[in-house]
């Protein structure tokens, strides 16, 4: 814990030190093999997403009915799908949706979780009690089923999928933040700020929030992985916009058009490998950050 607080004090310091502490932070992070590998994977897929139009051999939306489910060839390294679209290009473009949904949904869930965790930990009382019951409930309930039902009712657009994933994933973040706030609340400088009549909002956002920030950050990185997982599962089940290109969608297509049962491994294996890799990338990075910020926390 002492290291975590030391770290966060760095962050809380004036902006002049931020560049220096960022350098300091990077020096420590660089030593963490798992973390560096994870970050490398994230960068790899970010580059793939950004430069998809440049690296893709074809326009993925190009339909060519004469190329119905064709096997890999020199022209189409991973073959084509039921619409004759180039699978390699589809897989490159698929990185976009995964990352967009991952980052956006994680941002929503972390912001909601942060605010709720801060208030509930700081004020305690009945609001806190309700929060704990709600998170208990969410922890137990199969969230994916929740997401399916809501998305099915409100209409499965990309934005809706992001909202549904983001708004149903905050409880675990809120829980973590809450327990941190409970201990930070008793630090002498917070207590003295409270006694000196500091406004609650000021204390929460000026004094407490900077100290939970590192853990929030690690948590956010982990959340990206679970959001990507959730999105892939939803699309696979047919919830979501089928015209959006995504890895889950490619796998959905492979099943729906008999590619799997026809043994077309080139259709189904690559998008799954990409999902696994990107999820491992975010998990490894988040895990390493957590380990750095909070060395006492148990591994895995």
């Amino acid at each position: 814990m002492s290291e975590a607080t030391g770290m966060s004090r760095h962050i809380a310091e004036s902006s002049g030190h931020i560049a220096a502490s960022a350098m300091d932070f990077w020096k420590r992070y660089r030593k963490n093999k798992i973390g560096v590998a994870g970050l490398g994977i994230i960068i790899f897929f970010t580059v793939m997403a950004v430069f998809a139009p440049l690296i893709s051999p074809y326009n993925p939306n190009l339909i060519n009915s004469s190329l119905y489910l064709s096997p890999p060839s020199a022209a189409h390294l991973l073959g084509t799908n039921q619409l004759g679209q180039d699978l390699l290009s589809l897989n490159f473009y698929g990185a976009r949706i995964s990352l967009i949904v991952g980052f956006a949904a994680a941002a929503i869930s972390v912001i909601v979780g942060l605010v709720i965790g801060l208030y509930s930990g700081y004020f305690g009382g009945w609001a806190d009690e309700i929060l704990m019951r709600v998170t208990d409930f969410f922890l137990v309930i199969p969230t994916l089923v929740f997401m399916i039902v809501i998305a099915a009712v409100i209409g499965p657009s990309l934005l809706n999928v992001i909202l549904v994933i983001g708004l149903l994933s905050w409880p675990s973040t809120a829980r973590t933040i809450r327990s941190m706030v409970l201990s930070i609340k008793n630090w002498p400088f917070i207590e003295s700020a409270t006694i000196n009549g500091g406004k609650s909002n000021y204390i929460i956002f000026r004094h407490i929030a900077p100290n939970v920030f590192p853990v929030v950050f690690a948590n956010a990185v982990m959340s990206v992985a679970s959001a990507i997982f959730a999105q892939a599962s939803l699309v696979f089940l047919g919830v979501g916009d089928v015209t959006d290109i995504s890895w889950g969608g490619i796998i959905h297509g492979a099943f729906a058009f008999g590619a799997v049962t026809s043994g077309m491994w080139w259709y189904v294996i690559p998008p799954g490998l990409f999902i696994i890799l990107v999820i491992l990338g975010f998990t490894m990075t988040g895990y390493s950050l957590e380990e750095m910020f909070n060395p006492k926390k148990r591994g895995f």
Partner: protein
Amino acid sequence: MATLTFSSYIAKRIALTVVSIFIIISFNFFLFRVLPGNPITLLYRSPRLTLNQEKSLAIQFGLNKPEWEQYLLYIRNALEGNFGISFYYKVSVTSELIPALENSLVLLIPATIISVLLGIFTGVFSAWRENSKTDVAVLQTAMAFYAMPTFWLGGIFILLAIYIGGIPVAGEYSVGSTSILNLLEHMALPLLTLVLVYYGQFTIMMRNSLRDVLSEDYIVTAYAKGADSRRILYTHAVPNAMLPMISLIAINLGLMVTGAILVETVFSWPGIGYMIYEAIGHLDYPMLQGAFIIVTFSVVLANLLADMIYGMVDPRIRYK
């Protein structure tokens, strides 16, 4: 005295379960009414239903009555297992869902038991050799499977099964067959997929739980008595490490259910998950909400069961 506190523990759990069930039903009621679109139409009026069916639904769910009365009727109907009529099958949702639930349990119960046992076994193995190469290998294997999308791993198994040949990749029975052997053949791949993806979380839980227990004072006491490794592990450490596992297993049942939905879809296993998948495709809203309620009910009730087992196993709760 002792039984009084134990029964108050149970009473508290039951109360929490009732609250959860109430939340689930209410959530459903409001979801299909508050959200945009025309929810009443979504649930009770479909061009596919006959006029008679529509009329009887309107009476059962009080569609002409004020909202609060509809809400009460909705709760009553839900508790009685009445979730309306399926748009697609044109029969009551419950009559379709009950056999589906049975099929799901046929797959889910063995999958859970095997995953938990495999997780406990590998977790004990890992914790006992903490930080050794075997520990790292066991954990990495578990993590690798855990990172795989369930439906994708299922797809890989289908590819392999078709390449090898002779292994059924869809359904619960071959047409016309009802033999156990035939069921087991069909179950092999979905079961394997579920177990592989989900045992890893139990490995990690068991490893961490046992690691905590192994640093407890009473373990040092057991060493001081002259107990050997076997006795330390199986008489003292594992039983204590199993206690938190009971709650953790219960909490993670939700995740197993999610996995089952995906696996059923991949292998066309006629359970609730497959019903959900089909309902999404058919826009069969009554079916979707019925399945949702049944799935969440089951998970909540399984948690209640786990809490009760916990209360009976832990003497600190049993004899307070």
